[in-house]
């Protein structure tokens, strides 16, 4: 039943496995998931330092164990409403590839849920119509009960934002 998916190109989210462990988190009442493998740590909200002149989507840095790492709000990339942090807010530190360099990046989350197994058979490619957000930033949707979980395409988000910033998104 999954022959179509299986013949597609190598997939960063579903490598060989049909199942991944994923960390679920919430942004503006939508549930997102990140492959647990890329997650380094979940931090309580800490003071962030704004970087004037940086792309709005990563416009601040934080101190992560003596390293200065960028803090990204993927809400902005998706064009969602920004939100103040609340008592449930967390920063998820992940490792992503930014133009060939493994980079630690903090990602803002309104709330972090559990780690759960997501199955490939439940996944659906992003519908080409009817999406409120940029389609190429979404890797796929996974159905879980009555709701859909969004798996963002980190590669695309960070590569794209970098390209944008290369053209000079600054103030």
């Amino acid at each position: 039943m999954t022959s179509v998916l299986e013949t597609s190109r190598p997939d960063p989210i579903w490598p060989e496995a049909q199942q991944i462990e994923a960390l679920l988190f919430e942004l503006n009442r939508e549930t997102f998931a990140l492959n647990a493998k890329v997650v380094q740590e979940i931090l309580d909200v800490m003071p962030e330092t704004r970087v004037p002149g940086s792309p709005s989507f990563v416009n601040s840095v934080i101190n992560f164990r003596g390293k200065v790492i960028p803090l990204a709000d993927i809400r902005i990339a998706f064009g969602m409403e920004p939100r103040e942090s609340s008592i449930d807010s967390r920063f998820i530190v992940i490792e992503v590839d930014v133009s060939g360099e493994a980079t630690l990046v903090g990602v803002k989350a309104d709330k972090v849920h559990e780690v759960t197994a997501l199955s490939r058979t439940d996944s659906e490619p992003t519908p080409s119509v009817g999406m409120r957000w940029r389609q190429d930033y979404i890797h796929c949707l996974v159905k879980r009960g009555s709701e859909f979980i969004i798996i963002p395409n980190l590669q695309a988000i960070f590569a794209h934002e970098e390209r944008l910033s290369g053209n000079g998104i600054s103030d």
Partner: protein
Amino acid sequence: MMNDPIQVFRTEASELFEQIESGLLDLLHDLSDRDQIDAVFRGLHTLKGSGAMFGFEGLASFTHHCETAFDQVRKGEVPATEALVSAILNAQDHMKALIESPGPHHDAQSERLLLTLNAALGGSSSASADGQIAIEGKAPSTKTGSTTWRLKIRLPKNAMANGTNPLGLLNELRGVGECEITADRTSFPDFLNLSPLDLHLAWDVTLTTERSRSEIEDVFMFVIDDMQLEIQELPMRSVPAGAVGDGSAPRPPQSVETVAAGKLTDTKSGSKAGDNVKVPAERLDELMDRVGELVIAQSRLSQLAASIGNGQLRDVSEDVDRLSGELRDTMMVLRMVPVGSLFSRFRRLVHDLSRETGKTIELQTDGESTEVDKTVIERLADPLVHLVRNAIDHGLEGPEERLRNGKSSTGIVSLSATQAGGEVVISIKDDGRGINRERVRAKGEAAGLVQPGAVMSDQELLQLIFKPGFSTAEKITNLSGRGVGMDVVRRTIDELRGTIDIRSEFGVGSEVNLRIPLTLAIIDGLLVRVGDSRYVIPLSAVEECLELSLEEDIRSRGRSFISLRDSLVPFLRLRDLFATGTEPELHQKCVIVSTGNERVGLVVDQIIGDHQTVIKSMSKLHSTADMFSGATILGDGGVALIMDVNQLVLRGQSKEALMRAAV
């Protein structure tokens, strides 16, 4: 990484190449310099030995010929000539290739180089030796018959502790030829003083073999630096008459040669090798990171101690403060490398360029012992190559033109380094024709870099040569003139947080000064607050701090200049620039920073004080935030961005230009 033996060899080889090359280049100045001849020979010898040991057979056999050639020079059998030195220089490049990609594909080149080498050794023997030397792997030795040698072998006392097996050496010697071995027990101690771990024996060996002296020496290849080995040729019944005449013919019977450690290694290993430890650079970087974190943790501790007000705690905190400061200083020194290692590369470059351009050039260097952070040295190599090439290609005139202008026919390029405070100044000077400002201006206008008729200071005009796409050379040569290069210099120096200034007098010469901070890892900074955020301004760039009263602020709205001792300095309101969205403080401060001759004022809300700053680089996601060169972590765990003064000054300048245009 360093555990890979091949890698170890490559590192060693590159050091040897440096030694050989500098020896050869010195020889070009004084062909009779014994010390340099010995140094080159030693380098080649070690290279051959370790090459063979690590399986670089091609390299070993090729180097062997060069070594043989130099051995002859060393013994005074063949004079050192310029042709010979050049041949070895070329051969050395080939050796590098042999290490890079070992394999038979180099054979043709090896052969060609050896022919040149042979010719340089003196044509007399060329007829017989031409092809022979080139192809043969072994030394063209006394094939005519066997020789009897007398060997005195004395190994160091601790030889066995180091894993040397004397018996193995003797057995190997038996393999070379017919041996008669007697033990020399003269230094054998009495029983009470006998240490079973030491070696007390020496040996006398009478060896009859067809092989050459160097092959006998090869038996002791691994230990030769520490041992005493005397090889003496015994009078023979049948001395082959009229031997090949290439120098390896039997020497006069009485010649005794001592290959003792003391003599061979006077400058190299010996005492120094034991004191030095090679450490991969990344381990140093790791250590540096830890020290950086320690410095941060320490500043938290001292803040805490101050707020708690416990005397004992404060004492401890002060102790830790002192210690971590010392540790940091020691750490910085560890990373320092003398500039000499960088300068020495240029001797070869100048030698080659001199041949290529037909100009006679002398390279003078000064201040080689000035020390700079290793990373800085590495990054400086490329810009310096461009600058030196540029000085030679554009700056220096040909010999005739120089004579016509009343200069000596030899052009002088000098490289010097001096330390000035927290900076090192590297200067590249030539006594050539100097920069023709009209031409620079014309070119700049043609390339669209300057508005025709624009008023420019001399420095601004000269700096044009560092703009991308700028070149005044009328024809593109192999060396320069393509308009790339000089802007690379500018970029690299900017990245190193350095500055460039140029001085040039038409007809007399030019000088380029690079001012580079000594280290990239830690700087002294001025901590300031703008809005809710804190920022660090590199202290080296700060000239002074002024108060900007509210009235003055209001009065200066719209023009953004303050008068500072009769000159107008443009200033930037960082609160606006950083879009903080906060109200200005009642007593704003203006920090005057400068790069070289350009000044700009930075208006901040508060000056917090000095701050030792451990620089953390920012990720590529923040590459557009070009007003900042990095970030640092403060005592309370917060992050402060480090301002890039060059960029801010540029912004200030462009603002100034706008204002001028508007007036």
